[in-house]
């Protein structure tokens, strides 16, 4: 996983509430065999509407998405996080997220930032014309207009994102513990390894 320390850039001023994962990526995209390439299907239905932020050249390639309350509700499909990542999004800012989505986002190196509605409203304004700066180390979102918003994050998740440690990498740091467990079981319950068919 890529390290995430600071993210600087334009942000999609999206703002929609209760965006479910069917909106993020419709079900017919689930037959794919790849995590990549799902950006094409991201917000597929919304992108049919003229003037939508995702097709506005002003915001093309923005690394930040600013959304409304309860972002990522509904189906647990991890494809939603994959689709946003494929679109180039590294941070989603919203007043609240579904638990499952924020877990899936984290597992895919995407930071979810929870800020009060008033702060989100202010950032939606700024995003229309200017970039936004997110600093994970200091847990702040700032703008060039002296805005400074502090956010909370689970220390374990912060540690993983800053270090670019995916959960697998982190578990593999403990590979000695796994090795010794396996060595112990090989003695205590050797038959646990399947007999060869």
């Amino acid at each position: 996983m890529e390290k995430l320390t600071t993210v600087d850039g334009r942000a999609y001023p999206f703002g929609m509430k209760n965006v479910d994962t069917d909106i993020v990526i419709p079900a017919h995209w689930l037959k794919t065999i790849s995590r990549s390439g799902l950006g094409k299907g991201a917000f597929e239905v919304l992108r049919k509407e003229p003037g939508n932020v995702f097709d506005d050249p002003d915001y093309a390639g923005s690394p930040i998405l600013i959304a409304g309350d309860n972002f990522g509700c509904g189906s647990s499909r991890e494809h939603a996080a994959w689709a946003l990542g494929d679109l180039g999004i590294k941070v989603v800012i919203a007043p609240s997220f579904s638990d499952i989505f924020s877990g899936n986002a984290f597992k895919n190196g995407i930071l979810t930032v929870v800020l009060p509605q008033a702060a989100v409203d202010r950032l939606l304004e700024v995003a229309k014309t200017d970039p936004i700066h997110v600093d994970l180390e200091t847990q702040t979102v700032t703008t060039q207009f002296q805005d400074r918003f502090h956010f909370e994050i689970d220390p374990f998740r912060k540690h993983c994102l800053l270090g670019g440690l995916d959960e697998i990498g982190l578990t593999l740091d403990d590979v000695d513990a796994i090795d010794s467990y396996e060595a112990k079981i090989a003695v205590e319950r050797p038959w646990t390894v399947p007999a060869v068919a």
Partner: protein
Amino acid sequence: MVKPRTLYEKIWDAHVVERRPDGTCLIYIDRHLVHEVTSPQAFEGLRLAGRKVRRPDLTLAVPDHNLPTTPRRDAQGNRIPIADPESAQQLAALERNAPEFGVRLIGDADAEQGIVHVVGPEQGFTLPGTTLVCGDSHTSSHGALGALAFGIGTSEVEHVLATQTLLLKQSKTMAVVVDGELAPGVTPKDVALAICGTIGTAGGTGYVMEYRGSVFRDMSIEGRLTVANMSIEAGARSGLFAPDDKTFAYLKGRPMAPQGADFDAAVAWWRTLVTDEGAVFDKTVVIDAADIVPTVTWGTSPEDVVPVTGVVPDPQSFADPSKQAAAQKSLDYMGLTAGQRMEEVAIEHIFIGSCTNSRIEDLRAAAALLKGRHIASGIKLAMVVPGSGLVKRQAEAEGLDRIFLDAGFEWREPGCSACLGMNPDKVPAGERCASTSNRNFMGRQGPGSRTHLVSPAMAAAAAVTGYLTDVRALMTDKEGMVA
């Protein structure tokens, strides 16, 4: 003195690799079943990170969701191409990934191929006291043999492939107790549906269930697989049966189970896997076996159950306003009206199959009822999809295929099939299916499809009359065996 422990706690404790300060544990995974739908991105993740599968010997890959149930090889043994390019691509990915990462693949034309949750027990891959995972929610099935088994997401699939572990928090425990004797015509499927109706589909959320009581002790291993399979339909990620002599007899001699002296050593440990006297469950649910009757679903959730002799409920009869609204929506979708008798509901499709009810005992129960009978004229398609190639072969050796074919059923190749319609087997919009599967969700068997969950014997009964039917009305003395 050692604190008395539940079966779940014993298996959990035996698999803790490391305990973290916040209570999270790194849990060792003994068995990993892989299928074609939820694994491609996990293998891709390994490839991108330059990682290997830590224990290919503990991993078994079997395609099941996308496979057509029509013949897969022509007379010359050449593969018959799969029409849907996306299904073909998911299957091809598994056939490429398994050998690349050294994982054993049971392929689409192998005799042992079948639904992962049928193949695991059948091959002796599933063992008591093991932790077993798969990227599929019906992994709970394997709890029938006393394995702590649960479904996982794709990132977790990758985590298990790379590390053979998962980071987990311990669940709460729920005892589901059914004592007494099941009446003739009442099957393990009816018990599972009764549990869903009693607990509700969210009732088991956060819990691991343990099935206790005389009904479960007396139940066959295949019946236990049906019940454990539907634990997830009552919200529990996992459901356990304490392994017993029936379990050991079932496993003895299976190809991937321990052999010889190893088997005896394993049995000695497996015998310790019972809940201790005095162990405390966080919750206990008690159901009297005498209260369980042949059951059907009327709505679009597995908790929407009613005796087959009953009527479609009135949405207003539910206390909770949100349930009232949901029930009305379900009835509109299902094309039913409150007060309608279930036995007056006409059926167009019969599906006997799925990881819930596609094993040999299920096929025997349906065939016992169909012998000498024929499907009704209103039935457009009745099909049997055996859970595995070995189940199919066994059924053919017993002549069951002839009974189904003579009765007007189609006799298909094994796979998940019309349970979720990822392959071509779908129920058309607005048409009604009596199905032995596990989910009656809107659109589950195809867009607009209407599903009534039933036991195999009840599916056979519906096939014969063309209506949802009380199986007891068609049973002769001999067929009293269907239970």
